[in-house]
């Protein structure tokens, strides 16, 4: 090994060690702690058993969980779908505006996503209040009956998840659309494609990367939702996040909370790690920025 390579190697280690070490200590070890905890038992007093056991994992098979897991999945899928379906036409529209209007519109889209997360959820609680203006307007327009309830159901959870994460979907899709060469659409028309056909066959593949990013940034946080169902969900809207919080903060059952977390974590970490490894060398020039 030449001195040059050695020097380079030393530089690499020096500069990589602090961030890697930090993440190993505060991310990797804690994650493994959670996984390890899933193989411990809990006593009724909130203590943690000393011996290793599979019982905690096995108890996840109890018939109450599939309901909640299934609800978490379909709520996440549905809210992601709504976000994407709304973002594509909006991203298309904004990208075709002239620059000045684009900036103004973007500002209006970004601001709600800078507002505190809890305040945004709280706004919906106020908005959907059964004696509030919106409800009265719906009743006056005969859209809702006086005893229709807008809050505390899965519908409310879905709406608020969409509200919270729509800007995250909109921004990458807009960013991709902005780079899209709209002459390609004209070319498709010239070649005889219909408007819809050109949109589906030319525009959508053109912004594929933006759509993928949007799916990731909406779907994953949606899976981990806890505050939203906690505040606007009723008795039928619990998600996995709520169960984890309940196990931790009420049932004093950390092993159980860990077992649930492990499932959620593995479902996300394994595919991400594989995808990232595959992408690492391939994509040197990408400037795409991931936002949560």
């Amino acid at each position, binding site marked *: 090994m030449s001195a040059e390579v050695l020097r380079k190697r030393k530089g690499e280690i020096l500069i990589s060690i602090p961030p890697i070490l930090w993440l190993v200590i505060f991310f990797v070890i804690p994650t493994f702690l959670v996984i390890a905890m899933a193989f411990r038992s809990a006593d009724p007093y909130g203590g943690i058993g000393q011996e290793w056991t599979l019982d905690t994992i096995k108890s996840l098979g109890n018939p*109450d969980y599939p309901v909640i897991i299934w609800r978490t999945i379909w709520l996440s899928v549905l809210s992601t779908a709504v976000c994407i379906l709304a973002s594509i036409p909006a991203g298309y529209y904004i990208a075709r505006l002239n620059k000045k209007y684009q900036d103004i519109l973007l500002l209006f889209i970004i601001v709600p996503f800078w507002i505190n997360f809890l305040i945004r959820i709280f706004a919906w609680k106020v908005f959907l209040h059964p004696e509030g203006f919106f409800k009265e307007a719906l009743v006056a327009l005969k859209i809702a009956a006086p005893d229709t309830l807008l*809050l*505390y159901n899965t519908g409310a959870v879905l709406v608020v998840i969409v509200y919270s994460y729509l800007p995250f979907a909109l921004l990458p899709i807009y960013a991709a659309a902005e780079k899209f060469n709209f002459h390609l659409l004209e070319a498709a028309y010239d070649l005889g494609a219909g408007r819809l056909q050109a949109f589906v066959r030319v525009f959508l593949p053109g912004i594929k990367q933006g759509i993928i990013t949007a799916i990731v940034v909406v779907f994953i946080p949606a899976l981990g939702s806890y505050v939203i169902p906690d505040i606007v969900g009723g*008795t039928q809207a619990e998600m996995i996040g709520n169960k984890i919080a309940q196990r931790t*903060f009420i*049932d004093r*059952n950390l092993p159980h909370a860990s077992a649930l977390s492990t499932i959620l974590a593995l479902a996300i970490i394994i595919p991400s790690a594989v995808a990232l490894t595959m992408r690492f060398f391939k994509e040197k020039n990408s400037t795409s920025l991931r936002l949560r």
Partner: protein
Amino acid sequence: MKKLLTFFAAALMAFVSCSKKSNELHIYNWADYMNPAVIEKFEKEYNCKVVINYFDSNEALYAKLKAGATGYDVLFPTSYMSRLMYEQKMIREIDHSKLKNIKNIDMAFVKKGLDPQMRYSVPYMMTFTGIAYNKKKVKNFKPSWSIFERDDLAGRMTLLNDMREVIGAALKYNGYNYNSTNDAELEKAFETVIKWKKNIAKFDVDEAKRGLSSGEFYLIQVYNGDALQLIAENPDLAFATPQEGTALSQDDFVIPVTAKNVELAYKFIDFMLEPENCKANMEFVYYLAPNIAAQKLMSEDFLKDPAVNPPKSILDKSEFLQDLGSNNSKFSALWDKIKSTK
């Protein structure tokens, strides 16, 4: 850039230095459960700062401490939870010599409780659970737990987010004891709660109170004093104790083992036992304190109010919540099942 760095460094230093303040008392309490004016008075008298955090069920309090929360100086668990925490060596024994006002406590009341010698707890307030409702919206109100079966009120009622209170109420409704651990009885209670669950908007403690006041909810399961606080502001509301009987609770002052400011904690408890201060608290929270000297200062109306001081007919049908030991897990398993069953 350099200036920026200096600024950040200064901010960090400030952070390290200000995170330790000596004269602070950390209390962990139920919401709306102590008169802020009395706390302010204490802060002035002892030249300290009282920092309050809130919990909304005994289980949440316990779990928070078990999960490693330290630094609280005074906690307010219900007596069954105080007992459990004592057995788990999470709270200290009370040194009576540091509480000159402990003589004000109603010993006849304490003797009937779980800690008859006040070894590890000092009683703060006596509470019980009932139903608060909006008189304008709820027609033909009947004081019974069965009211939660009424589907004309569907979506406008709430139950407490507390397994002992909800499952207990269902046990009572079926004629059993609040502290039952009999499987068949619990199964019956489960079926009852599921029927109720169809009609309620959510399981909640504090938000439900705001909701009742703002017209969001028409009827809620609630602690007596909390209900009276709402009624004082909104005359459309009323409170009733279910005829089947209810859960009685005694909430305590306890000092956790991990307390940092034990001396100040004693001073705080002693201060709250002073008749004047105890009276001011009672007037604010509408609960009855088992404090004879303070009760003497209260009006006859307050002491005779059945929503403050339940009559014997109700007491006879009601129970104090007990710690269930290892049978606690029966309740949590059932509570889980309730939360995930449609």
